[in-house]
C-alpha cells in the first residue's frame, strides 16, 4: 500500500480532547438522518428484491 492513511484511534481521541472533532459529530448526524429517511422508504419492497432463495458456497 502506497498512500496508506491509517488514522489512529489515539490521535482521534486527542483531537477530540482538544475540541477538534466536530467534523465527526456533524458527519455522524448527517449520516444517521439520511439513513433514517431512506430506511422508511419502501422497506418491504427492498427486502423482497434482495432475497437470495438459498445460500451459496
Amino acid at each position, binding site marked *: 500500500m502506497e498512500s496508506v492513511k491509517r488514522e489512529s484511534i489515539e490521535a*482521534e481521541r486527542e483531537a477530540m480532547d482538544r475540541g477538534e472533532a466536530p467534523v465527526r459529530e456533524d458527519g*455522524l448526524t448527517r449520516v444517521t438522518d439520511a439513513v433514517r429517511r431512506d430506511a*422508511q422508504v419502501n422497506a418491504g419492497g427492498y427486502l423482497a*428484491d434482495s432475497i437470495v432463495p438459498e445460500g451459496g458456497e
Partner: protein
Amino acid sequence: MKFRRIGQETEYAIRFTPLEDGGRPGNAAIYRALRDAVGEVVHTAPGSRAEPNQQFFTENGGAFYYEFLPHAYQGGLIEGATPECHGPGELLLYQRAQESLLIRAIPLAESSLADDGWPGSIGLIKNCRDAEGHTYGAQENYEAEVASGVGLFALRAVAALSLVLGAAVTLFSLVFAIVLFLPFFVLMGLVAGVVSEWDEASLARSSWRRRVRAGMKRWIDQDDPHALDEFFCLVDYRLIFPFMFVALIPYNLAFRVLAFPRQRRSMEGFLVSRVIVSGAGCLPEGGTFALSEKGVAVRSVSRWLPTPSSRSIFDNSNALKSLMTANLNLMLLRTEALRSVFSRRQRLQLGLSDSNRCQVAEFLKTGTALLVLEMAEAGKLDDAPRLLDPVKALRTLVSDPALKAGVEVKGGGRMSGLDLQRFYLERARRYLEESSSVVEEHREVVRIWSEVLEALERDPGELVGRVDWVSKRYLLETSGRGLSQDSLKKIDIAYHELGSGYFELLEREGIAPIMVGFEEIERAVSEPPSPGSARLRSQVIREVSFEGQRAKISWSSAEIGGFFRRRRISFDGE
C-alpha cells in the same frame, strides 16, 4: 516470514428493483449482463469452469463466478475471488478493486438489461445473510502445511483410494445417466413428431392434445438459451451428486481428522472470538442484535457436508471440490489437478468469515489470522486456550454485544471474547519481539489490533466506521429508533450495498478511515499483485484478449488455442 499465498472469496447478493411494475429477470441473466459489462471495463478471459458457473478471469488475475444451487439456478449470487495476495494490505486492496470494478459495471449492465426489456436498478450486496436468514458470503483462504509425517502419508493414501473409488462412481453415474435419459429423449423426440402432425381442427376438439402441445412448446421454444444448463445441473445435483458424495466420505473423514491439525487446534479460540473485531453484525429473525452474520449460522467446527445448511468454522468444501476435479480430469487422462490434492501445502479455508465494509475490520480480519497462523505453524500456540464447546461458545459470544459473557475453556475457567483476543495479541507481540526478521506490516496489524481491543473495552462507540458490527448497531439504535421491523431490517441489509449503501455514507463523511486510496484501487482493477502466479495469469489474459485467441484460464494454468493446436501454460512455477 514464509511466502504464503492468501485470498478471499466474496459472494454478493443480487438486488433487482424493476422501474415499472412488472417482473424481473432471473439472477443468471443479471450475472451475464454484469459479466459482459465487466468485459467492457477490463480485459477478461473465460475460465475453465465457464459452464455452468460462467466463470471468467479479469486482467488483475482475479475471477468471477455465478454461484448457485442446482435447484435454485435463477436465484444465484455473484462470487468474486481475489488474485493470490501475500499480505492483509494487498488483500484489502484487491478486495476493494473487485468491488470498484462491480460498481463501474452496474450502470452498463442496467442499460443492457433495459434494452432486453428489463428496466430496473441493480444492487450488489456484500453481506452474508438476507432478510429471510439464508446464509452465504465470504471465505478466507490461507496457504498452509496440510500435514506432516504419518498424517500426511495417511491423507495422501486416502486421497489415492478416493480417486479410484471416485473413478468407479463416475463411470457408474455416466452409465446410469445414459440408461435413464436416453429413453427419455427418444420418447420426447417421438412425442414431438406426433404432436407436429396434429392439425388445428384436432387440437380444437381435444383439450389434452392442447396441453401436450403447450408443454412441448415450452420445452422447445425456451426464452432462456441456458435453460438446458439449469436442467442438467438439477439432474447432476439430484442423481449424480449423491453417488459422488458417498465416494467422498472416506476423504472427507480423513481430511477432518488429519488436515491442518496443529493450525485448527491453535486457531480455534482465536477464530471464535475474532467476531468481536471482524463481525459484520446482523438482526436475526428474533430481533436481537448479533455480532456476526456467519456466526449465527455455524453448526460445526469442520464441515460434514458440502451443502449450505452445514456451515462450519473450518471449511473443507474446496478440498472436496479439488478431489472431484482431479477425479474428472483423470477420466480425461489429465493429471495436473492431482498436484493440489497431494501437495504438502494446501488451502486452509475459513468458513467463519463475515463480509466487511469497514476497511479497518477487513485489514484486521486477515492480518490477525495470518499472524496467528504463522505462530501456530511455528509451534508458538501449542498451549493456546481450547474451548470446551466451540460452537456453543461462538453462539454465546455473537449474542453478547456487551462483550461481558464468558465461555468455558478446557481445564476449567471461563474467558470472554476480549480475554481470548488479548491472549493472542500478547503472543503476537512476544512473537514479533523474538523474531529476527519481521514483516513491517505485522507490526501495523498488532498496533491496530491493540487499539481496537482497547476501544472495545473502553467504549465500542469509538469504533463507528472501523468495526462493522459497532457501526451497524449504532445506525440501528440511532437512525432506526422507533422504526418498523422492516425498516430496521433494511438498515441491516442496505448497510452492505456496494456504491450506494449506508456504509458508503460513513466513508464519504470521513467517519470510516480509508486504508487503501482511490488511485491504488484504480490501478489494482487492472494490474496484478506481484510477484506470483497472478502476474503470469494477467499477462496471458491480456495477450489472448488482444489477439482474440480462444483460451480457458484456471488458477493453475491456461489452455490457449483450438483442440488440435492447443498449448498449455502453467502458472504453478511462478
